[in-house]
């Protein structure tokens, strides 16, 4: 049945994706909700929260009468009050289902807030109904035009990485060794866009690595603005296949992940002698075909129709999908995706 999910819990939503991009940028981030959405971001989708690094993320604390009467002015007042207490470089308002249902005018909200504040204000019209990747895309879309310094020139030793947020990765800690491996590759300066200065210096990158489809639009914007080329790149796949050379040989393989990760793994499987490789994803696709069969999943039933049988010899996907496939008897390899299972 469309909409009914019996085995898999919901994936990280777009508001979590937006908050992940905004995390640690020294902005005042207001989740425009009653509390639960902000709580989910904090308690589940943002592992950096528990690392001790603080970030000014707040809930708007909306109550029924705020929503019914559309009291945006109260939200702006609360934001201004917080801005008096906190030194921030910008303010961001992130949408959730409540403003989506009452039809909040984010442009008006931005203008109202900008009139009263002396810092830039960005709004991200997430709805809590899309997946996290849409929120990442929207947050980049809001930030780069406001923060990127157009006078920056490309430097040969500088690389940018778009999509390097915990939700896109296998494990939150992967961010650290992405930096490390890029240093080993000879890059001197790495822009992970997890600090506000990285946005200001975005034009310095001589290459942008795009870790997920959510980073593509930003990469295209930076190409258009600064002429920076970009390429798709995912990190750390060797750890998944555990360096087993025979894992894929002659096998019919299904890979379930976000599209950049899945297609990178597919390339690896093909190189290792897989007979046939299919990728599948609920998340954003890539504009150009990647050489393998790409299945767009929309419902839980789509996965069950595709893989709850013995059509594939081996499936690589987050361990959390396994319980939706009781009739698959082949080999299941855990290919973690933080936005799916939130495993640290």
């Amino acid at each position, binding site marked *: *049945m469309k909409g009914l*999910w019996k085995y898999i819990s919901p994936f990280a*939503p777009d508001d979590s994706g937006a908050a992940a991009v905004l995390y640690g940028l020294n902005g005042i981030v207001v989740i425009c909700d009653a509390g*639960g959405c902000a709580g989910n971001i904090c308690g589940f989708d943002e592992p950096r929260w528990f690392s001790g690094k603080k970030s000014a993320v707040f809930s*708007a604390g909306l*109550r029924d009468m705020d929503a019914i009467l559309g009291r945006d002015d109260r939200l702006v007042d609360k934001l201004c009050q917080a801005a008096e207490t*906190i*030194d921030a470089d910008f303010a961001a308002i992130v949408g959730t289902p409540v403003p989506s249902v009452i039809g909040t005018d984010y442009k008006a909200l931005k203008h109202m807030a900008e009139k009263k504040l002396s810092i830039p204000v960005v709004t991200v019209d997430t709805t809590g*109904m899309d997946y996290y990747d849409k929120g990442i895309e929207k947050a980049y879309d809001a930030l780069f035009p406001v923060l990127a310094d157009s006078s920056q020139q490309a430097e040969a030793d500088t690389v940018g990485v778009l999509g390097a947020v915990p939700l896109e990765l296998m494990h939150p800690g992967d961010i650290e060794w992405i930096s490390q491996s890029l240093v080993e590759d000879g890059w001197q300066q790495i822009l992970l866009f997890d600090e506000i200065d990285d946005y200001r210096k975005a034009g310095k990158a001589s290459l942008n690595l795009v870790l997920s489809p959510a980073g593509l639009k930003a990469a295209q914007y930076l190409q258009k603005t600064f002429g920076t080329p970009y390429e798709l790149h995912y990190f750390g796949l060797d750890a998944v296949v555990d360096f087993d050379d025979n894992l894929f040989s002659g096998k019919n393989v299904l890979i379930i992940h976000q599209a950049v990760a899945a297609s990178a793994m597919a390339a690896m499987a093909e190189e290792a002698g897989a007979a046939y490789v299919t990728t599948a994803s609920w998340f954003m696709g890539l504009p150009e075909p990647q050489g393998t069969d790409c299945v767009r999943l929309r419902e839980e039933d789509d996965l069950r129709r595709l893989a709850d049988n013995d059509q594939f010899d081996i499936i690589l996907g987050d361990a959390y999908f396994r319980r939706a496939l009781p009739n698959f008897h082949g080999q299941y390899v855990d290919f973690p995706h933080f936005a799916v299972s939130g495993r640290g």
Partner: protein
Amino acid sequence: MTERKPYAITVQDLVTRGRDDIPAELVTSTHLIYNSPAALAFNSPGAQGFGVKRAGLSIPGSVMLLVGPGCCGRNTTILSEMGGYSDRFFFYIMDETDIVTGRHLKKIPQAVCEVVDSLAEKPSVVMICMTCVDALLGTDMERVCRKAEKEAGLPVVPCYMYALTREGRKPPMVDVRRAIYSLLEKQPRRRRTVNLLGYFAPLQDDCELYDILRGVGFNQINEISRCPDFAAYKAMSQANVNIILNPEARLAAQDMEKRLGIPSIELTRLYQVAQIHKQYQALAQVLGTTIDDSAWHERAQAVVRAVREKCSGTTVAIGEMQNGNAFEMALALTRYGFVIREIYANLGPDDFVYLRHLAQLSPDTQVYSNLSPSMLYYRGQDHPVDVTIGKDAAYYHEQAAHLSWDEDIQPFGYAGVISLLQRLEQALLERKHP
């Protein structure tokens, strides 16, 4: 740059201002709500402990269908991983078309049927968990549930995870307590049966309340979390009296009084031994009997004396992510010789009953709100303490000894005091000799 620091006020100053003049910095509706691990209990009660989702599954054999946007079901992954929940949560994920057209309401009965059909064992009840979206749409969920009930052939009960109504007349955690008892039907009452209402997990096994109730003639003591099956749950409607152990269960008790004719008595969780004794005497009066609690009372007093000797002067920070009222606990521990440096808690007018006494004994204790934006600037190292109580307090004071005191099993009465003091002592000892 101006010096940035968290907002705090002493207990003395709070009492001087009075219960009608609580500073705006401590009133959640007047400011943005800081979202930090210390604020999880407020923003996402379900992420740890019992929120609406887990609470709604208290009825034995129940399953839950959450109807809402994906973001509302997100942290359910954690719950599913907790023992026993992975096969009990199902989701109808709403999209924008559902919101615009309300078509999800027509699909709920079918979804309930599909969920029931997918299970090897028929559930006792399907709880439908609704979110802020349906609150705004004004959905008549009772009607939808009646239709689903007819089609699926089993009880279907709505429970409302409406965070928007948190400060209203029926906040989500109050209404879910009403919802879980709503399936009880009128039966002949049994004189010697009593229900304990308020928690979703049982009281600690060694709690004297069980013996006291048996002592005054109750031979059947019901708690929803100890009901082995649906029949045992249904038998709760035979109770002669409900004892409310958490104020959030008052609405449920009122509903049960109205529908089932069961009256209620309220007991408060206290950590002051003398007050616990007074409360039991008051309970005896209400029941028209006598309660001899002297053995437990003396044991608790002995533990207090021993701890006072060993721990007097120990500095403490108390949060609200723990099983107790932070202000009452602060008052109790001050009376036992501890020095309460700081309290992090949501303050309400009712807390002044404790604050007035605390102001006399420990006027300089500082009160913070976990939810104040200024807590971004709180630095535990500027205010060191020996031990913290509550996960939020532990978050602020990494270096201190920690007692999380937030387990599902509920401390209560003298047994609660004894456990608290013993665990505090143990936490301090472990810190000294790791």
